[in-house]
C-alpha cells in the first residue's frame, strides 16, 4: 500500500513545524536580549517610515537619548492610520500615532483611544492651533503644481481655474487626504457656492486618482497641466533634483492647510516614553529633519531656519482651515456634492 497524500502532508507539516519552532525560538532569544531596553512603537504612514522619509533619522535621533528602541508600524496614509487605530482598538501595540491630519482629528478624538498631551509645545503655524490630544509636527498648503516651461497662463484662483481650459489631475477625497483637502478647500472658500465651483471644474479634471503618488506621477508624465499637491512640492525638485521648472500657483481665495499631528494612545504602557518622543518630535533636531525628508514646513521652524530652496516658494496670503469638528461634520455632504457635480 502506498502512502496517501495526507501522509505526505503530515510529513511536510512536521518538517515545517520544526522549522517554525526553531524560528520562534530564535525570535524569543532575540527579543530576550532586548528585554532590558524598553520599546516604543510608533504607528505612522508608509512614506514617513520609509528609507526616504524622516522616519530613520528621527528614530536614530531619539534612540540616542532615550535608552530605548523605536519600532515603526505603518499604514498607507493618514486615513489608513485612523482605520488601523480603530481596528486595533485598546489592544493596540502602538504607543504613538503619527501622521493624522486636522481633517481626521475629530473622528480620532471620538474614538476615545487617545490620551491628553503632557505639554503643549510652541508652534509657528500660520493659523492658531491648539488641541489637547494632538501635537502638530509639520504642515503645508495644498496647491496646484505646474511646469513653468509648459504652462504660461497660470490661473490665479480656483474660480479662474474652473473658467479656464487648464487640465488638472486631482485625488479622490474618499481615498486620499489631499483629495479631501481640496474638497474642504472649495467648501471653506465658497461655502454654499461649492457645488457650482465643482460643476465648473468638472471639465478641467482629466482624472481622479486613488492617491497622491498616482496623480503626481501622471502629472510628471505630462498627462495634465497641473496637479493637486503642496506649495512645498517644487522644493523637492529644486533640492533633490536641481530642477527649478516646477512651481505652485498662488490662488487669491487662499490655500487650505494640511496640519499633520501626532498623539499618544491611552492604552500605551510606555506613556512616559511616548511623552518624551512627542517632545523630541516638536524639538529643534527633529523639526530640522522634516523639511527635506517629508517635504513639508516644520511646525516650529528650527533655529537654523528653513533649508535653502524653501525661500523661493509661493507663500499664500490667506490660510484656510476648517475647525476639526466642522470638517468632520461637512465631509459626507461635501463628498455627495462633489460626486453629483462630477457625475454629470
Amino acid at each position, binding site marked *: 500500500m502506498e502512502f496517501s497524500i*495526507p501522509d505526505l502532508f503530515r510529513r511536510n507539516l512536521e518538517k515545517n513545524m520544526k522549522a517554525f519552532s526553531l524560528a520562534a525560538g530564535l525570535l524569543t532569544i532575540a527579543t530576550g536580549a532586548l528585554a532590558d531596553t524598553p520599546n516604543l512603537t510608533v504607528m505612522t504612514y508608509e512614506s514617513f517610515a520609509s528609507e526616504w522619509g524622516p522616519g530613520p533619522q528621527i528614530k536614530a535621533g531619539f534612540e540616542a537619548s532615550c535608552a530605548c528602541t523605536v519600532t515603526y*508600524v505603518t*499604514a498607507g496614509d493618514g486615513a489608513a492610520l485612523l*482605520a488601523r487605530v480603530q*481596528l486595533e482598538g485598546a489592544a493596540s501595540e502602538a504607543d504613538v500615532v503619527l501622521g493624522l491630519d486636522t481633517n481626521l482629528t475629530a473622528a480620532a478624538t471620538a474614538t476615545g483611544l487617545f490620551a491628553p498631551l503632557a505639554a503643549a509645545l510652541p508652534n509657528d503655524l500660520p493659523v492658531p492651533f491648539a488641541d489637547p490630544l494632538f501635537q502638530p509636527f509639520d504642515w503645508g498648503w495644498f496647491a496646484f503644481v505646474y511646469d513653468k516651461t509648459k504652462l504660461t497662463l497660470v490661473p490665479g484662483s480656483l474660480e479662474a481655474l474652473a473658467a479656464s481650459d487648464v487640465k488638472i489631475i486631482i485625488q479622490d477625497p474618499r481615498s486620499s487626504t489631499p483629495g479631501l483637502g481640496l474638497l474642504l478647500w472649495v467648501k471653506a472658500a465658497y461655502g454654499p457656492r461649492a457645488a457650482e465651483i465643482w460643476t465648473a471644474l468638472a471639465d478641467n479634471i*482629466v482624472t481622479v486618482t486613488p492617491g497622491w*503618488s498616482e496623480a503626481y506621477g501622471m502629472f510628471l508624465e505630462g498627462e495634465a497641466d497641473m496637479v493637486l499637491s503642496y506649495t512645498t512640492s517644487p522644493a523637492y525638485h529644486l533640492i533633490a533634483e536641481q530642477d527649478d521648472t516646477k512651481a505652485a500657483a498662488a490662488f487669491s481665495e487662499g490655500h487650505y492647510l494640511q496640519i499633520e499631528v501626532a498623539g499618544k494612545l491611552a492604552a500605551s504602557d510606555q506613556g512616559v516614553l511616548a511623552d518624551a518622543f512627542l517632545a523630541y518630535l516638536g524639538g529643534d533636531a527633529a523639526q530640522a529633519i522634516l523639511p527635506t525628508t517629508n517635504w513639508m514646513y516644520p511646525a516650529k521652524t528650527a533655529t537654523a531656519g528653513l533649508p535653502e530652496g524653501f525661500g523661493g516658494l509661493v507663500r499664500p496670503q490667506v490660510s484656510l482651515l476648517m475647525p476639526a469638528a466642522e470638517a468632520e461634520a461637512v465631509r459626507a455632504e461635501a463628498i455627495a456634492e462633489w460626486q453629483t457635480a462630477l457625475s454629470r
Partner: protein
Amino acid sequence: MANRPFPLAAAVTAAGLALLTLGTAAVVASRAQVWALAPADWAALRFTLWQAGWSAVVSVVFAIPVARALARRRFRGRAAMIRLMGAPFLMPVVVAVLGILAVFGRAGPVNVALAALGLPALSIFGLHGVVLAHVFLNMPLAVRMILMGWQAIPAERFRLARALGLSEPAMFRHLEWPMLRAVVPGVLVVIFLVCLTSFAVVLTLGGGPRASTIELSIYQALRFDFDLGRAALLAAVQFAIGAVVALASGWLALPSGFGAGLGRASVIPAPGGIRRWADGAVLMLAAGLLMAPLVAVGLRGIAGFADLPAAVWPAMGRSVGIALASALLATLAALVLALSRAAWAGMAATLPLATSGLVLGTGLFLLVHPWLPPERLAVPVTMLVNATLALPYLYRLLRPEAVQLHADYDRLSRSLGLAGVARLRWVTLPRLARPLGFGAGLAAALSMGDLGVIALFAGDQGATLPFLVQQLMGAYRMEAAAGVALVLVTLSFALFWAFDWIGGRYAGA
C-alpha cells in the same frame, strides 16, 4: 474511491477556502454596528457591472481570432509570442496603467501621431479607457485559455474531418464551435469576475466619480468611514454577483465531447490566401496593443536603473520567496479541487474570485491582531492570501482538462488497477503538466505583482517589490519607482516562463 482521488484533502482545502473568504467577511460583519448601503453604492454597482461586462465581452471577442490564428499558423517567433502574450496579465496593475498612459496618454505616441495628422486628441479617461486597460490586462489570459481549448481538440478529429472532405465552415461548426461553446463561457466569467473587483484601473482611468466600483466603495467604507457593516454588506453584494455569474456560466457551458485522442500535437488546417493575411493582421494588431505599453514600461524602467535603492535586493528576495510559496500552495490546492468530482469543490474554488481583497485582509487582521502583532505575520499571511486569490485561475485552467482526463482515462486506469499516487504520477500529472506549469507560473507572477495585504500588515521592514514601488512613488522618486517596477515585471515574467517551460517540457516528454 477512484472517482474521488483525494477526498479528505479536497474537503480540507474547500473548507479552508470557505473560511478564508466567507469567514473573514463574517468576522468583519461581526464588528459592524450599522447595516446600510449609501445611495452612491447603487451607482457604483451599476458601473461595476457595466464595465466588467464590456471588459469581458471585448476581451473575448478580440481573443478568439487571435487564439485561432495562433492555433493554426506556424511562424518564427510563435512560441515567443505566446509567452509574451501572457505578460500583461502578470503585470502589477499600477505599472500596467502607467504603461498604457505612456502610449495612449496626452503626451504618448498615439496622440502625437493623431496631432501630426491634424486629428483631435484621444482621451484615455472614461469607460473606454477602463475597458481598454482591462482588455490589455485580460485579453492575453483569454487568448491562452481559448488557445488551450483549440490545442485540446484531438489531432485525429481534424485529420478525420479532412479525410471526410469537410469544408472550413463545416469544420468550424463541428469541431471548433463546440470547443468554443465549452470554453468561452468560462473565460467570460473569469474576466468578468477579475474586472468585478477591479479597483486601481477604474479609479485611475475612469476619469472621476462616475466610474466607481463596489470595491472602491468597500475601500471607502473601511478607510474613511470605518463603517464595517457597509463594507461587509458590499462584500456580500459582490459575492452574490459572483455566484450568479459563476452559476450562469456552468449552465451555459456545454461539454465538448470529443473523446480521447492519442495526445498528438494538433495540426489544424491553415487556409491560405486572404485569410492568411487576415490572421497575420490580427496577430500584428494584438502584438501592437499588448507590446507597446510593455515597451514603454521597459524604457521608463531602464532610465530609472541608475537610482535603484539598496532596499531593492532584500525586497526582491522576499517577493520571490512569497511568490514561490504561494504558487506551490495554490497549485496543490487547485489540483486537489480540480480532481475532486464534487460540485462543492468547484464552488469553493470560485469563491476567491468574487472576494474583496480588502475585506479578506481586514478580516484576517481582526483575527490575528488579538494574538500576535500583525506585522510579524506579514509574510505568511501575504503568501496565504496571494495563493487564495490565484487559486480560481488555476482551477479554471485545470478543471476542463481534469474532466477530460477522467472521461478518457478513468476506465483504463481502473482496469489497470492504477490508483492513488501511482495514478497521479503516471496518468494525471503528465496529462495535466501543461496547465499545471502555466497555472503555477500564473500564481507566482500574480503574487509577485500584488501589493495585496502586505500594506495592511506592514511594519518598518519586510517590504516587497510592489510595496517598495509604492514607497518610492510616495517619496517623489518616480524614476527610481519605474526602475523597481521594471525589476518587478522582469522577475514576474521570469518566474512565469520558468514554470510554463517546465510544464511544457514535462508534457512533451
